């Protein structure tokens, strides 16, 4: 499918641009290094834009491709194992992107880190250890976050994508198109950093793709931070195994979940105005 291939191309652009950015970023002084990249490094803002926008494009492409697969009922072409691992690509992509967001080190990223630490810690038994493993201990620098952003989750995303697309790398044409699209977007849509210090009384927003979850967490207990996404993944994963009314029911649940997520997103944005 064209969308799937283009998405794979965007992943490659994100990885390459990320490698180009790595020397400019400091785990001990994340915001300072990114301000330097944006403000004092020739073409630094553009390179960061290419990385951010290609990554967002990868996530959007993955989501759109999933909807396309479910709509066209082509999920049955994948073996159950591959299907479940392909579904897992969604949270892996989000975790990879979330790591990038946290690596900004600005006020929004610091708040996001605190929220994510709490959400991880609320997972029974292994939560605290998992939080320390993925995010480091409180007060440490962002090196663990960067390691999992550039290493664990990117590698996982690549492996899952490669298995799903049955290709170790995207084809040249998709890569060129993804690169051209990212270059254009990075020039036309500058990607800004958040405030250095939280403005008094203002609501800090997390990454755009998690606004619905942030909005829900204003009203729900912290365990909803991992239970709600897990519910969606289970529902989507099970679609591959059922037909007829059950499939329709599961898809309706997924659609309702998405509508609720969108509603929480809108509500949060209105509250932040």
């Amino acid at each position, binding site marked *: 499918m064209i969308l799937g291939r283009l998405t794979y191309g965007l992943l490659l652009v994100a990885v390459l641009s990320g490698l180009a950015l790595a020397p400019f970023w400091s785990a001990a002084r994340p915001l300072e290094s990114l*301000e330097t990249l944006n*403000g004092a490094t*020739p*073409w630094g*803002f*553009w390179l960061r834009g290419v990385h951010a926008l290609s990554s967002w494009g990868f996530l959007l492409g993955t989501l759109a491709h999933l909807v396309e697969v479910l709509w066209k009922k082509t999920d049955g072409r994948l073996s159950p194992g591959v299907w479940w691992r392909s579904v897992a690509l969604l949270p892996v992509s989000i975790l990879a992107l979330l790591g990038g967001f946290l690596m900004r080190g600005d006020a929004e990223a610091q708040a996001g880190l605190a929220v994510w630490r709490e959400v991880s810690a609320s997972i029974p038994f292994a939560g605290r250890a998992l939080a320390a493993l993925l995010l480091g201990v409180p007060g440490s620098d962002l090196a663990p976050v960067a390691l999992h952003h550039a290493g664990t989750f990117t590698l996982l995303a690549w492996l899952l994508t490669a298995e799903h697309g049955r290709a170790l790398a995207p084809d040249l044409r998709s890569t060129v198109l993804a690169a*051209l699209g990212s*270059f*254009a977007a990075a020039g036309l849509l500058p990607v800004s950093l958040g405030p250095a210090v939280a403005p008094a009384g203002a609501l800090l927003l997390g990454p755009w793709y998690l606004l619905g979850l942030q909005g829900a967490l204003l009203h729900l207990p912290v365990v909803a931070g991992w239970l709600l996404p897990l519910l969606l993944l289970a529902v989507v994963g099970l679609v591959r195994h059922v037909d007829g009314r059950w499939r329709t029911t599961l898809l309706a649940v997924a659609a309702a979940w998405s509508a609720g997520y969108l509603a929480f997103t809108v509500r949060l944005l209105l509250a932040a105005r």
Partner: protein
Amino acid sequence: MFRTRTLVALLLLALAGLLAALGREGQRETTLGRGPDRAGGKVERCVTCHVRPEEDPGGAHARAAVGCSSCHLGNELAFDKARAHAGMEAEPGALRTVSRTCGRAGCHVREAQRVATSLMARASGIVSVDRWVFGEIPQPRGAATMRETLAKADPSPAERHLGKLCAGCHLHALRGNRDDAIHGNGSGCSSCHVARRLPGAVPRPHPAVDARVTDDRCLGCHSRSGRIALTYEGLYEVEKDQAGACGDAATTLHDGRPACRAEADVHRLAGLSCVDCHLHTDLMGDGREWEHEEDQVEITCEACHGPVRGGSAGTETTWGEVTDPISRDLLRQRGETRPPEEHVRLGRRGTPVWNLRPSGDGWVTFRKGQGVALATKQTPIDANHVLPGHERLTCSSCHAAWAPTCSTCHTAFDASGKQWDFAKAVETPGRWVETSEGYAARPPALAVRADGRIAPAMPGMVMDLDATSAGGPRASRRLFASLDPHSTGKKARSCESCHLSSWALGLGTGTLDLSGAEPAFTPPAPAAEDARMASDAWTHLDAEHPGAGTRVDLRSLDAKELRRTLAVGACLPCHRDGRDPVYRDFEQAKSRLAAGGTRCAFGNRGG
């Protein structure tokens, strides 16, 4: 498969994107500051652009020492102007952000916390007295602050009055929403600690930020209400049509108000500024939420000039016993030390007067600004200071030479008018109109405070209030306020200026007749509500209750005290000297007079 047309379209789009990025890159390059990017031992990219020497406040707050963002906030890591200035505090020191500026960790945490509780920030005294005068609370006391008052969605008539006339001076007032008298001052801490920027002045270097507060910073706020800062300078405000009567003494205040010159306070003439006498707890508070100014102020005349009548007021200790950390910090910052055995005088609650030092047999006061030492005379134990019958007098009741007065204030609300509203920082409908028949400067009247001591007083609110259009009362008030007017003279006022002055005794302007058995008073302009009373009086000779003041239990002399005082007045034309034997035991002298056992030509007048 992807079509070639898609590829070409994306290629063109990418080209457009790259061109846009090229433009942004060029802009970034040209707007990039060229200065150093470190200050105060940290990354401070503000100074890549703000490189001009005149942008440096110097001193302890020099750009190189603390950078810009320590006080101005913003984003010191950014190179881009918009990002660097996002979240900036335009008025560093403003109480809204003080915990992140002056009061940030490692700087002035303690002082910033105190200032927030001080009366200059809370103005609770002004709020409670105003609300009491409007009949909204039963007593002139309360903890409500000016900030809370201004935040009210549905303010009462008194709160609207405060919001339009009185709220322009507290420390929360921000630039552009202040009383005319303090335009040019900073906000919060900067109101006192940053040099003033005068209206209309050309842009000037970054003002100095320091602990040496000059009088011009106090003058703005304290040229209103009791006007102590004006009195200290030897100035009193007048109405425009009165200025001519001052002749050569006419002048204009910093904010354009007409004024006349009078004798300045003796401390001012000696070169002492406000902060030379007032302790840090007087000005920044001590962390407690006092209701009125006289509660917060610690300094006393006795702290410097010693106790009256040779007694010990418990106002002295040695530096070894001093625990006040701020005074110790002030000395350290100035590179001064005090031996533990050195004696030091204290304010009412034990704060040391650190610029007053023992010298030989006496004491010297150091002017904080210049370090000049001034011999500080101790109160002598002489006839004038141990006069029987004067035990209750405060120093200022005799040494306050004059006070500004306004005995005819008419305040009305004009619903059809418009006026600046400090609560909303815009002009809003409704206007409070104040008129008077003019100001004057005269020796203060005498009041009896809640603690029983006699102190100077001046008309605080002798007024006709018509707040009916604002939903408030129509009322007449005859209230005097007691305060030290800051017109201290080396020479005390004369005996006659109290014992034979109807004004000093609170009777107002008129003629006293002490020739009969009972004193008599004739006002040329009787008050509308009582013909026995002068229109500018506080009380009258036969008042059942003494006149009320702007504090709980502050009052005029009562009928008995008035007669006792006037009885001395009757003797003064002949017995002018306080050392005269007749005053040694005045009650006995009166008894002898009543029994006819004297040669006094004044006659038998009884007690």
